[in-house]
Each structure stands twice: as C-alpha cells, then as structure tokens.
C-alpha cells in the first residue's frame, strides 16, 4: 500500500457522485458511482473515494491529485443559500444592478416576469468618486464615506461586500483604495470588479462581482470542511477545483474567485467531448447530455470546445470566459400534455422528485421516461443497473387520459411523446449550430447522460447527421472530462483601439503586462517552464458594431510582442472569422479591438489513458431479444450487452445494454466498437454505394 500513483476526478451531481480513477503507472481508468449527500457534498465524496479505493485496490494516501467538479456554487445561487451582502458603487448608479438590460423574455405578458436581484436597494451604496472612460480621475474617492459604511455594515451583520465602480477595468485605484479601507475597519470579505471581471460594460461586471462576493463565504466554508475531511481520511492529494472554463484552479484561487466555478457543472462533459474528438480524430462533435429536466448541448468545432464570454444563472449575467453550453428544456422527466388537440412535451418537468410516474414517488403525469418504458425501450428490471425498480403500470395509468384525449392508442401516444421530444431537441441543436454558421451534417453526435442513448439515432436522423459516437463509461463521462483538465487562469484588459499601426505601441505594453501577470500566476502555482502555455486573443469588431468576436492571436503565443505584422495577422483572422460566422466580411472597414485576453495554462501532465474496456471475448455473445416498440410497431428486437460488440458492424434495430443505461440503434443504422470502449453507429444511406 501507499505505492501507487492515483489521480481521481470527481463530478458531484445532485443524485450521484461520479468518479473516474486513473492509475498513472498502469494507465488504466476505472469509473465508480455512489449517492451524493446534498447537505454536505464533501461527505459523499469521501464515501465515494473509500468505495473506489476498496473496489480498485488502492489506498487513499495513494491519491496524488484530486480534481473536483461540482454544482455547489450553482445550487447556492439557485436555492438562494447566500449570505447577506452589500454593494459599493459609483454614486448615481446604485440602480444599475436592478435595472439590468431591461429586455423581457415573455413578449405577451401583462404580469411582469420576476427578475433576480441579489442585493436590495438598502444595501447598495453610492460612493462619491468618478473615473472617466480614459481612466483619468474626475472626482477622487470619498474615503470617509467608505469607512463609515464599512463600520455600519459590520454592525448590521453583513459579511461580504462587492465593490464595483464605473471604468474600474481601466483604472482600479478607487476600488483598491476602498477595499483597503474596508479591510482595515472590518473583517468583511471583499470582492472588487477589476479583479473579478476586468472588462467594459458595467451591468455585467457589477453582476459578476456581486455573485462572487456572495459566493465567497459559501465556497470558503465548503473548502475548509472538505480539507478537514480529506485530511481526516488520510488523503494528502493536491486538490483542484473545476471552473466554468473547463480548466481547474487551486483552492486558494477558487476561494478568492468562486464565481469562476459557477457554471462549471456541464464543463466536464464538454471537456470529455473534446477528448473524444481528439482520440477519434473527429474535428466536429456535438454532445447532448440528456438529464431529467433538461439537456445540455456542447459543441466541438475544429477540435476546440466552443467558448463564450458570458453565461447566465437565474437571469443574472456571469461575465467570464466559459465553455458554451446551450440548455434545452427537454429531458427524461419532461411532462407530456395536451393543448387544444395538440401533443406538447415540456417545458414542465417532473424532475427527479416526484420524477416520472414509473418512479412510484407520486408523479402522475406522463413523461418521456414513462413513454420509453411503455415502448419497451427501457427495461423495468434493469433501470440504473437494476438499482431502481420501475412501475410500468403507473406509466400506463399516467398516459391514459392523454391518449384518450388525443384518440391515440397507448403505444402511439407513447411513441408520439418520444417523437416530439426528439424533434425539439433536434431543432435546438440545429439552431445552436446555425448561429455559428455550421451545418449539423458536418458533425458527429455524441449522447451521454442517462437517457441520451435511447434518443440519439432519431435525433441524428432529424439533423441529417450520419454518425453517432457512444462514449465508453457514458454515465461518468463528465468525471472523465475533468480527468483531462489543466490549470487555467483567464486575464483580460479592456481598452478600445482602432486596429492600425498606431495601436502597436500601447498594445505591446498591454500584452507584455498580461504576459507578466500570467507568468506570475503560474509561478505561484508552481508550474514548471515546460508545462506552461500562455495564449492570447482579442475581442474585435468592425467599427460601429456593438458586439465583438473573440479572435485568437496565436502570433503572440511564442513571443508576447505586438508589431505591424502581428496586427495584420489579427485583422486577417478577424475578417476570416466574421466571414464564417456571419457570412460576410469587410476587409476595407476599420477594425476595433475592445478587450485583449490571455489564458495562462499549467499542464497537469496527461497520462496515456487506456479506458476501462474489457476484451470483447470476455462475455458470451448471447442471442437475447425482447419486444420493443420501434417506429413500425412492436418487434422482437435483438438485445446485446455493450461489451460483446466488436469491430464487425451489427445492423439495427438492436438494443445495446450497458451498466446504467441503454442505447437504441434504429433500423437503418449499423453499430460497431471503435476502440477505447466507444461504439460508433453509422447510418446506412439507402443509395449509398
């Protein structure tokens, strides 16, 4: 014991804590699942580590690296389990947080939709101070007012403060001064906007800073409890936290900037998509993680996961670089209902409580999962690896009134629910690709999550996609993505420049500063020179446009130096990108740069991973079959265990069973193993040669 070198990735969800365990010496990976403990997720984590250690024969002290993904920050915001906070901002602008961008979602509504507001007006303080767009100080900071407010807040039980002044991204001095004063007079936890999101556009920066401030006590508290538990259990591994950008951060950084964890839930899945695409030499892949209430779509284009500069939580902007995820309101728990003779599925969902009718927890409305059960696509006995017995009769009862109202047989109603859900998922995927100027036909679809495998072929057909890749260990795939993460810091500098020769001087200084900051961060992280990467990009737009496109600037990655050649290369790249995204470019028009970005990466050393793929021959090839309702009605359909598939294609229809879920390969498709435990289904075109 104590002789192995184990790396563990953990993805803590609401129901399960998923692990992938990599033995760095042998290169083998195992996956493990155990129940989560929502009241304190660190408890379930320790249980899972113990379980995995026993099953795969290692000691907790063998773990050298623990990569930790979770939705703790997300849940704290969604469930409003946040401390009392205050906001200090420029006098005259205390309502910016409340007004937001003032556009509504429900176009025809007489009753306004509710808008999230995390700090009430009483605790938003206007401070006399003003910095101009150029960074010049117009009005100095009223230090006395800051001190008075700080003293008052301590007395009022406020524990955390956001400081966000106009144009602080250009000149942070007032925020720094105010933070120093508050630190002197109180033990308040402080977040400043120039540190959290140093970019232009005040509402998004203030919102992100406020979220950071409110999450700080939550995440610090969690990390302290976790450290204690790990130490008690004898785990001395270095801990890393997964961020929304797909990279990881050390605990100190996560405690300081917890907002960077906020939308990290689906990041592991997206990272896994990138890894799959790389391993199977596929450039373009679209991943669908089909959950209970919703499905997350992530896209890999040209081998890179699509990123975005802003996400939202509960309607509040989170402005940070992050993996782009489109969430669709369709999942296994989506409820089917009738609206004037039409069958609708979702957006209402039974979630996991009460869940679909067949869960027997009190759900009485028919869901997509109930439909799959009635169609024989889910086996009542082996759901979630047999851990949960499903009640088919309850599903039948739930669908009864719907099928009567629509004058459909139970089978047709159930198939209808599945068809409608598939079509709406396909529409959402098509739209998210179309927005980037991409054609679904150029992509490979990869389903994961509980129910994805049953729907993938049908969704692919709707999208004219010919290949579906079924990843190995689909049920712990996110943890697998986390396993390949690297340390990552995002840095930025917002300042508007017309992109011409005159800009080279000032841009050069900015780029050097960013490079120096990035290097310093990697020093602190103890990243060696060989493990470092610093990548540059710039947010560009044509003069007059209001939105920018993040444009890679690879010329600077070798040497952080801006000259006329580098500027021309950036412009050229921007024109090309604009052409791809928006179908036109204007090479003669002036280009503006709004923000310069650097990404500092510390490689954590990728091990060659051999997936948990037993040899094909380890199982008898059974000749099982069962009645499954397919497109053309009930058919005796072959059922195979996933591990029995080889490189020889098997024609659909066939149902493939795996540990926690099943894959439905429709007629017209053929499936085979393609290495690393993955399966690939290929559509057999009628006219194909």
């Amino acid at each position: 014991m104590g002789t192995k070198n184990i790396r563990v990735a953990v993805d803590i969800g609401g129901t399960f804590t998923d692990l992938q365990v990599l033995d760095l010496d042998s290169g083998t990976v195992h996956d493990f699942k155990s129940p989560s403990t929502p009241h304190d997720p660190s408890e379930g984590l320790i249980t899972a580590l113990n379980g995995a250690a026993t099953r795969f024969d290692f000691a907790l002290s063998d773990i050298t690296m623990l990569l930790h993904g979770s939705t703790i920050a997300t849940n704290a915001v969604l469930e409003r389990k946040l401390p009392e906070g205050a906001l200090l901002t420029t006098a005259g602008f205390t309502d910016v947080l409340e007004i937001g961008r003032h556009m509504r979602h429900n176009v025809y509504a007489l009753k306004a939709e509710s808008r999230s507001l995390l700090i009430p007006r009483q605790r938003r303080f206007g401070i006399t101070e003003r910095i101009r767009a150029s960074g010049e100080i117009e009005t100095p900071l009223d230090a006395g007012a800051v001190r008075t407010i700080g003293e008052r807040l301590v007395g009022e039980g406020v524990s955390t403060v956001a400081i966000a002044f106009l144009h602080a991204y250009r000149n942070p001095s007032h925020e720094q001064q105010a933070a120093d004063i508050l630190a002197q007079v109180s033990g308040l936890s402080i977040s400043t906007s120039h540190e959290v999101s140093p970019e232009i556009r005040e509402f998004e920066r203030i919102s992100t800073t406020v979220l950071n401030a409110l999450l700080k006590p939550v995440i610090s508290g969690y990390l302290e409890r976790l450290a204690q538990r790990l130490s008690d259990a004898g785990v001395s591994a270095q801990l890393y936290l997964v961020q929304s950008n797909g990279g990881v951060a050390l605990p100190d950084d996560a405690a300081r900037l917890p907002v960077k964890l906020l939308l990290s839930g689906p990041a592991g899945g997206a990272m896994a998509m990138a890894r799959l695409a790389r391993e199977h030499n596929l450039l373009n892949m679209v991943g669908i993680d089909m959950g209970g209430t919703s499905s997350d779509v992530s896209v890999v284009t040209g081998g890179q996961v699509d990123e975005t500069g802003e996400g939202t939580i509960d309607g509040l902007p989170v402005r940070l670089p992050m993996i782009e995820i489109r969430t669709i309101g369709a999942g296994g728990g989506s409820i089917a209902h009738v609206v004037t003779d039409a069958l609708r599925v979702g957006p209402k969902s039974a979630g996991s409580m009460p869940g679909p009718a067949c869960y027997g927890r009190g759900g009485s409305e028919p869901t997509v999962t109930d439909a799959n059960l009635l169609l024989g696509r889910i086996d009542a006995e082996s759901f979630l690896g047999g851990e949960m017995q499903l009640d088919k009769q309850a599903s039948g009862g739930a669908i009864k009134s719907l099928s009567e109202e629509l004058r459909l047989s139970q089978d047709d109603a159930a198939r209808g629910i599945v068809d409608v859900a598939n079509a709406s998922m396909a529409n959402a995927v098509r739209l998210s690709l179309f927005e980037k100027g991409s054609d679904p036909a150029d992509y490979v679809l990869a389903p994961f999550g509980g129910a994805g495998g049953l729907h993938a072929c049908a969704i692919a057909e709707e999208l004219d996609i010919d290949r579906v890749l079924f990843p190995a260990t689909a049920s712990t795939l996110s943890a697998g993505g986390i396993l390949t993460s690297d340390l990552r810091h995002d840095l930025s500098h917002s300042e508007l420049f017309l992109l011409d020769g005159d800009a080279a001087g000032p841009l050069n200084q900015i780029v050097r500063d960013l490079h120096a900051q990035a290097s310093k961060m990697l020093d602190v992280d103890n990243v060696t020179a060989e493990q470092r990467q610093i990548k540059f990009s710039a947010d560009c737009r044509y003069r007059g446009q209001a939105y920018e496109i993040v444009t890679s600037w690879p010329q600077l990655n070798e040497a952080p130096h801006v000259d006329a050649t580098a500027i021309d290369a950036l412009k050229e790249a921007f024109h090309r990108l604009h052409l791809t995204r928006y179908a036109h470019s204007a090479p003669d028009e002036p280009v503006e740069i709004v923000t310069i970005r650097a990404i500092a990466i510390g490689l954590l050393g990728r091990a060659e991973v051999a997936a948990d793929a037993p040899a094909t021959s380890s199982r008898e090839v059974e000749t099982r079959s069962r009645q499954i309702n397919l497109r053309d009605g009930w058919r005796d359909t072959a059922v195979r265990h996933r591990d029995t598939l080889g490189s020889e294609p098997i024609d659909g229809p066939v149902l493939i069973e795996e540990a926690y879920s099943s894959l439905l390969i429709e007629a017209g498709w053929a499936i085979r193993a393609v290495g690393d435990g993955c399966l690939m289904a290929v559509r057999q075109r009628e006219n194909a040669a």
Partner: protein
Amino acid sequence: MTKVDAVKQEVIRNALIAGAEEMNVSIWRTARSTVVRETLDYSTALFDGAGRAVAQSTRIPIHLNSMSVCLEDIIAGPIPIDQWNDGDVILTNDPYSGGQHLPDFVAFKPIFSDGRRIAISAAIVHHVDVGGGAPGSYYAKATEVYQEGLRIPPLKLVDGGRTNDAVIAMIRRNSREPDKIGGDVHAQLACLDVGAAAIGRISTRYGNDVLETAMAAILDQSEAMMRVTLSALPDGTYNFRDFVDDDGQEAVDLQVVASVKIAGDTCVVDLSESADQAPGPVNCTLNMSKSAVYCALLSLADGTVMANSGAYRPIDVICRSGSIANCQSPAPVANRMATGHRIVTTVLGALAPAAPDRVPAAYYGVSYVLALQAPDPLVEGEARVYFEVEVGGWGGHPEQDGADGFSCGFHNLANSPLEMCEVLFPITFTEYGLIAGSGGDGEHRGGLGLAREWRLNADWGTVSGSFERFRHGPYGLAGGEDGRPGRFVHVSESGTTELPSKISGVRLASGDRIRLETSGGGGWGDPGNRPADARRQDEDAGYTT
C-alpha cells in the same frame, strides 16, 4: 383532406417555429447596420400558401402582427396571389399599401413544391435610412409621407429568380447609408431562402398534403384558444379613452378611443372616435392599429395563444377613415409608435372591467428614442450619432406591483451600456437610476420610471427626442393613481429648460447636461388598501419618498 395526427402536428409546429427562428438568426448573422445587428429591429415569419401567418419568431409585437395584414393588402390589390410565382420576392415599405413606416421593408417569398405554392416566408427589417428630412428617416417636422423618404409600392424585387438590381440601385441612391442598406436588403433576401429551406425539409419529410393540413390545424388551434380567451369575458361593450400628448407640432391633446364589443367568442374593436389624423408624424394606418389591437388581446391571453392569423380571426378592428388610427395618404407616420402604444393601453383599459383579475394599470406606453449628433472622440473631424431607447414603469397589476424600469407592451428593447457609450461618444453619464415616487400609488403601486442623465464633453452637439406621456401620465386602475409623467430637461450655463416631448435639433454646448425622466406606471387599487408592510418596504428601499 389528409388526416394529421397530434404528434406530426406538434412536430411540424415546432419545425415551423424553428424555421422562423433560423430566419431570425440568418438576418442577425448577415446584416450590416447597427439598427439590425444591435437593436435587433427586425422580425421573421412563415405563412401558409394562401398567405396566412402560421409561425413567428420571438421578437417585437409591433412587427410580428403586422406582416399578415400587409400581405392581405398586397394580394387584395396590387399583386393578387395567383401572380406570386416560383422564384419571386415581393417587397414594399409603403404605409399605404400595407407597410409600417418607410424604414420598415416587408418582403415575402412564395415557396413552391411540385408546382404548388405551399408556404410563404416573410421578413420585416427596419433599415437604417431611407432618405427624407432627417437622418434615420425620423423627421419630426414632416407633414406628408413624401417628406419621410423613399416609398416603394409592392413590387417584385426578385422576379422568377432574377433580382431587379435597378430597384436596389434606386434604394441605395436614396439612402444616407447606401452600403448598409444595400447589405441589409441582401440579408433580408437571404433569410427568405433559409425559411424556404426549412419548409423544404418539412415537405420532403412529411409531404405537402400533411404540411398543408398541419398548418391549417395550427391556425385553427390558435383561433380556438383565442375564442376561449374571449368567451371568458362577459358580453358587452367596453369603452375607454386615453391620450397622445401631441403630434410635436401643435400642443393639442389627441384622444385615442376604443369601443370594444365582446359577443360570445368574438370581439370587435372600434377606434372610430379617436382624434382626426394629425399634421405631425404620429399617425397610424389601420394595419398598424390592428397590430396594436392584436398585441393587446394576445397579452390578455397571457402568451398562451400562438400568435398567428388564426388568433386574429375572432377579432375585428374597425376605424373611421381619416382618424389618427386609420390615417389616409399622405399623412406622415414615422413616429407611429406614439399612437401605437396608446392603442394598446386604450384597448387594455377598455377590457379592464371585463378581466379585472388580469388587466394592469397603464404602462409607460412610449418608445423613448433619443438621438445625439456630436463629434467623434475617436476620429477627428467626424461626427457620430448616438441613439438610445429607454423604457419606464409597468402598471400595478391585480396580483402584484408594476415592474420598475422594464420593457413592456408594444416594444421590447435593451439599453446601451453606459461605459461603452462613454468610450464611443463625447458624453459622461451623471445618473442612471429609478425615480423614487414615480409609480402611481395604489394597493399595487405602479413601477418606477427611470432617470438617465449625461453631460456633453464636446464643443457642440444636437439632440432630438421622440417621447410621450409628458402631460398625460399612465392611467391608474380600480382606484389607483396615475403614474408620474416624464420630462426632458436641458441644463446649460443660462439655466434649466424643460423641453417638449417631441423635439429635434436642440443645440448643446460643452458642459451642458441632458436629463430624461421616463414615466412610472399607473397604480392599481385603492391606495388605502396598500398593506403597511409594503409601504414600509418601499420607504426603506427608497422606492417612495
């Protein structure tokens, strides 16, 4: 007729909505001007082969419900539907041939399969400039539509697949921004093809008969749901009157009167008692008025009815010819939104007694469009135009207070980031916030209006505004008080000047300040019934004074 089951029906409905959304994205991706790219002033829809709107993108109410009436006008007159051939695109911007105001181009493309017209894709786009007396074609002094820019009668911009380049050349020649309008016209044409492709996918998959039947059923569904909404209202005739402050030329109240007759599951809205058409450009054609009425009734259904031609079937809109709500050529119409918003608040006001549980007091009811022309801080010797559109407070609702500073009703817009404005234009903001006490008092108070104030840092600037509700505050309901009217203030060395609501060409000097205060919403219910708790909370937060 082919039978279509509920499943195919729903799958096709979703595919049609997705098709309209794809058209939407296509315009956003390919357009050139900021009006289109940034303020998102465009909308898209798919129609059936007979010209009935079936599916629309989620966009701007004013646009969405206007395209079908426009198409009806075109096929009833200038270009009958049997002349719409494969490869054609029909275009117009003429308010007196079904259009809106001149910057809005409406384009339709019939889609054929097996020689049969199975659908029509349609898009309305606000183009940046079509000439006329002022940049952006918002000429406050216009007294005739001829002064507002280029008028394009319904014509085939594309005829049997051949684009009429002469028309595009003429459009470009008449615009202050020829490249942008040229680019945006092409974006508009391209999106029609995206719609055609979406229809093609459905028709290939399910066949034309199924598509046609499904579209008819979607219309029937919307009709049925609208009839359910109307049946729930007690029969009777409901009258209401609200006011437009003025037309920007004469300080005269312009009344908007709605007489709404509910009979069973139908509704007739008569706007005939409204003021005569005005000399200034605040007039609405009957089509614009219909769009406003549809918006009001769709919101009465609380967004549950899919907005399309089926939903309009049980609704009849009539109005005396020559009134402000049915203006006749050559009345100017550029600032039609002034009256359009008011028709929405008037129809809702009329129906308040019929649906007392749902109808709120009046929202601010105006698109606060402000424009500043001033030197460009980034490029010497050039001037730039700064545009902003603001909003105000919602009316108090039977169940809750009105929302503070939030888009409502006939439009739906985002504000511009202060920091970005300060980088791009020679201004420094001095305030952006809610106005305490501006919401009408009531059991449920009106939402608060906004104050937006800035200082000019350049040597010169000229400012224009198209506002409303400076004299007639948004009405309160059920005993609630009116919302506080808005104001527009110019502070200079020589003192403080209250400016009128509709003004252009106000000259500013360096250091001058401009302050816009928007209206709060009306209050709902007797102020005496407002719970003490709610009052205390408002006071603590400073929402009231």
